[in-house]
């Protein structure tokens, strides 16, 4: 992992100067979606890159040790071995970037992965996910417990009330506390963009989160009505670029929620490459939060290798 973002003092002047032109961002998003990746081996390689950036996620009320276990197994072997082998990629360590579960399932995931001799990190959502409407004290406790259980990445949600009312200093303080509670675990800050109102607010919240020491900023919980959209991603990614140009620290980006197809995964990679450059195209700085995406990618890879579309039962269940 690259050097972590240590954060910086809250610079409210910088935050206040932020300006975002909505139509220009929408236009840019259209452009990015129009940029095509070549077919064949290029597509296969890009899709495998996407696989290595996936935070394979299950966040349901009915999660139990058995489906978490299956998820972990899928994370260690995300694409059928024979398919990888035919592309000569079987020995290149293709796994997903992490598995992502609720705090109560962290122990199960850690156990499953340990048993499989895998070093895939376990990520846990925390801090009153998804609404964040619980007292700060319990939210902090949640983080500490997840870390104790063995989570090495924590996806925290910000307090939208503070962001919407412009209390950036308080938001900064809260995230700072979370960062302390995380300790060595990496912190991904979920902005819940669908509930922030404007692009300008998204940009500001991104800046404040990074100033407070987030290692990643993440679009949404997947539980809001509006999830990861390309325009909102462009706004966040620009904030990342701004922060990097000013401080020299690279912060990662994680879109999550509603990403289901291989085609979408490609657009996300294009967006990162166009806006931030190749250096951001690694799991250290880019994650895709998804659950059903992997299945579609595997199907596309199957098609690339065999020239046929697989029946659903031909690919292992996640």
């Amino acid at each position: 992992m690259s050097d972590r973002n240590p954060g910086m003092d809250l610079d409210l002047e910088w935050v206040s100067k932020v300006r975002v032109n909505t139509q220009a961002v929408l236009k840019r998003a259209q452009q990015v979606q129009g940029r095509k990746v070549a077919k064949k081996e290029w597509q296969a390689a890009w899709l495998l890159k996407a696989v290595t950036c996936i935070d394979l996620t299950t966040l349901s009320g009915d999660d139990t040790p058995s489906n978490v276990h299956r998820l972990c197994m899928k994370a260690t072997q995300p694409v059928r071995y024979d398919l990888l082998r035919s592309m000569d990629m079987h020995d290149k360590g293709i796994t997903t970037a992490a598995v992502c579960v609720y705090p109560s399932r962290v122990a199960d995931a850690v156990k499953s992965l340990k048993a499989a001799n895998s070093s895939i990190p376990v990520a846990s959502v925390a801090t009153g996910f998804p609404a964040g409407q619980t007292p700060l004290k319990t939210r902090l406790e949640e983080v500490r417990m997840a870390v104790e259980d063995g989570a090495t990445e924590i996806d925290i949600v910000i307090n939208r009330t503070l962001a919407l009312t412009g209390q950036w200093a308080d938001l900064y303080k809260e995230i700072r506390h979370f960062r302390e509670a995380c300790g060595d675990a990496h912190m991904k800050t979920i902005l819940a963009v669908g509930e922030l109102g404007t692009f300008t607010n998204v940009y500001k919240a991104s800046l404040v989160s990074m100033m407070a020491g987030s290692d990643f900023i993440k679009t949404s919980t997947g539980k809001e009505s509006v999830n990861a959209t390309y325009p909102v991603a462009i706004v966040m990614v620009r904030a990342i670029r701004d922060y990097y140009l000013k401080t020299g620290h690279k912060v990662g980006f994680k879109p999550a929620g509603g990403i289901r197809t291989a085609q979408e995964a490609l657009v996300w990679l294009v967006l990162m490459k166009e806006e931030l450059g190749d250096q951001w195209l690694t799991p250290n700085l880019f994650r895709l939060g998804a659950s059903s995406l992997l299945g579609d990618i595997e199907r596309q890879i199957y098609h690339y290798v065999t020239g046929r579309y697989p029946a659903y039962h031909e690919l292992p269940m996640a």
Partner: protein
Amino acid sequence: MADRSSHSVYNIFNSMEFGPSAESSAATAASWLEKHSRSLGLFIDGKFVHPDNRETLAVSDLKGEILCSIVCADDEDILSCATSSAKGFQKWKEMSDSWRHKVLLRLASSLQRYSQCVCEVCDLCRIPGSAPALVRLAQYYAGWAQLRHTLLPEWNPRGVVAVVMSDDVFFYSVWLKVLPALAVGNAVIVVPGVKTAPPTLLLAQLLMEAGLPAGVLNVVTGNGSVGVRVAQNNQISYVTYSGSKQDGELLMKQMAGRGIPVSLSLSVCSVCPFIIFETADVDSAVDGLMDTAFKNCTEWRWVVCVQESVYDAVVEKLKFRMAGMKCVGVSDECERGRVDAAVHEAEQQGATLIQSRPPPSSGCVYPPTVVCNVAPSCSAVVSPPPGPVVPLLSFRSAAEGVALGNYRPHGRAASIWTEDLTLALETAKSLCVGLVCVNTHSVTDPSLPQSGRRESGTCTDGGREGLYQFLSASVTPARSEPVSVDYTRFGAAASRFLVPEGSNSSSVSRSCSHLVGGKVCKADSGCSRAVQAPGGTVLAQCPDGGRKDVRNAVEAALKVQPGWMKKSPAARALALYSLADSLDKRRQDMAASIHNQTGLSMEEAAQEVELSISRLSDWAALCDKQNGHVPLLPHTGSALSTPEALGVVGVVLPDTKPLLSMVSVLGATVSVGNAVVMVPSEKFPLPALDFISVLQACDVPAGVVSVISGGKDQLTQALANHNEIQAIWYWGSAEGRQFLQHCSPLKRLWLHCEEEEDEDGGKFWTKPSFSMQEEMWRECVVWKSVWIPTA
């Protein structure tokens, strides 16, 4: 898949390259070209014709491979084409509005059907052409065809219109001329450039399929001179040109003296300001810049002006975003050399470069380059070479940004970036351009009227306003043959000192003054000339003005005109009412002046004064009635189109109705916010000179109106040679008209014959129709559109 190994999945996985872009298919274009055996003829009288023994020109694609050949038309072809167009015009003119409407609508739908083919042909010929934009254009002007008689009664089509294009014009620009011309009932001869020829021929064919009668649209191809030869044909009633400044000027000169109006749209290579204020969404501005500046074919060139407080941010973002960008193709080695030279020159003058990669040692490509801290005089700023090179300048305040943006010879378009609405609108108002895009870099829609300013032309295209160039309300000057004029000596005759012929000592003539920049004075040269009554008696000595008087008048006008233009229309109306009032108070004196000067009866003279008063009141009343509009675009956002004053207008007045003609012109020009320098009739200057005291007694600010008496040719020459004068209205000799067309091709010229004092001539002034008044108003203004896209 020869080198599959280097493109192994693993290698790509590590490099994350995009891979080769998919070869764009050109199958339909190829099959169209094949159908014509890859040799395209001329399109005359509804079909392709292949005259024998003509030279041909090859059209090549990006790789230099020959796509097809086009015919170089010779004089015989042009003649048959003109004859066919004249017949076509008769048919087309007679058709009903709804029929013309139907034809254009059918064109729109067949464009939709064949959009693939049109795009591919454009691509192959390396000219940008977007089918949806063309469809919209056809639909828009189809609407105007339907409504012509309802909304534009009294206006008539001009006849056969020649649309001449240079090689590097956008395909859309060709049709932005052709379709409005067709919509209002003209026949059109298109002379496309070599590269635009194949798609133009394709569209001509589509129009024919849509039901356009044969001959209404003819396409003549050929080398450089064919445009001029077509324009000079005596069937042509109007010539409009789109392309580069050089060729446009040349065409204008060659059309001098033919009595045919010529207008120029010179957007090719226009340098446009791209202004980024500190209140901008800088990331979006940088994106916009990269989107528009580093393409291999663009019509406009950009100069980026960045406010100092965000200059570093812009530079850093550009560096970050441009890193590793691929080289962009330039058209040939020679062009690449020019780009290289310009960049080197800038570097030597201390500029620093942001370059995505070092330029390769050879090949027709160049890396995207931003030239920072460049001297404003550097050729990279003044005339940026056609390539992916953009100069970057900085400014301190918003006002300085506008000044920097205006400080260039072109006036085509501007892109401004700020989230501050007030600043955006103020800036848009102050920029001397035809199109202002706020927080975006371009917009293509036919409903936006845009005038070229300064060196970007003399023509208004788009919108309802773009139709008027193809219509006429008044009687247009008759066609004529050029006469021999010594351009260097025109108007150079020295003033004649008049020795007083003291035969009759009792009538020592009075001595008049003229009005220069608000001051009543003698001619700068000190010379004067005698004014004679029709009987031959010397009535007075009037100043014999010249170059320096014009210079002084223009200087004064430039100082007061911006303030006059900024005044509210209501305030301008009041000033003009006060002028009418002032004239009313001196009606006796003025009538006497006309009577003495022209020999008209007192009664007729009084009538002219009466009409003059009412004319001034007309224009005063119109001040706050003629307004801009809000075009409705198919995109989300707000557009504003406003008429704006030209600046300083020079007018050479006729002998007819000396007071009425002067007052009509004065009212029209001044009411919209122009300053005017008027040259009264050489023969009958006294009413105009006597009017000076009327002017001085009213509220029109000093300097807005100047009246300079003297030799007509001399003063015409002086007006023509002052580059701050934006437009010249001229009533006078064929030589004078020819001289003006030849010597000031970039001014807006409104040329009229000196009418005889007959029924017709008088009518122009005494009984102008509504449309004639409107035509005069349209000659006084230029159109600016502001486009503010919103989400």
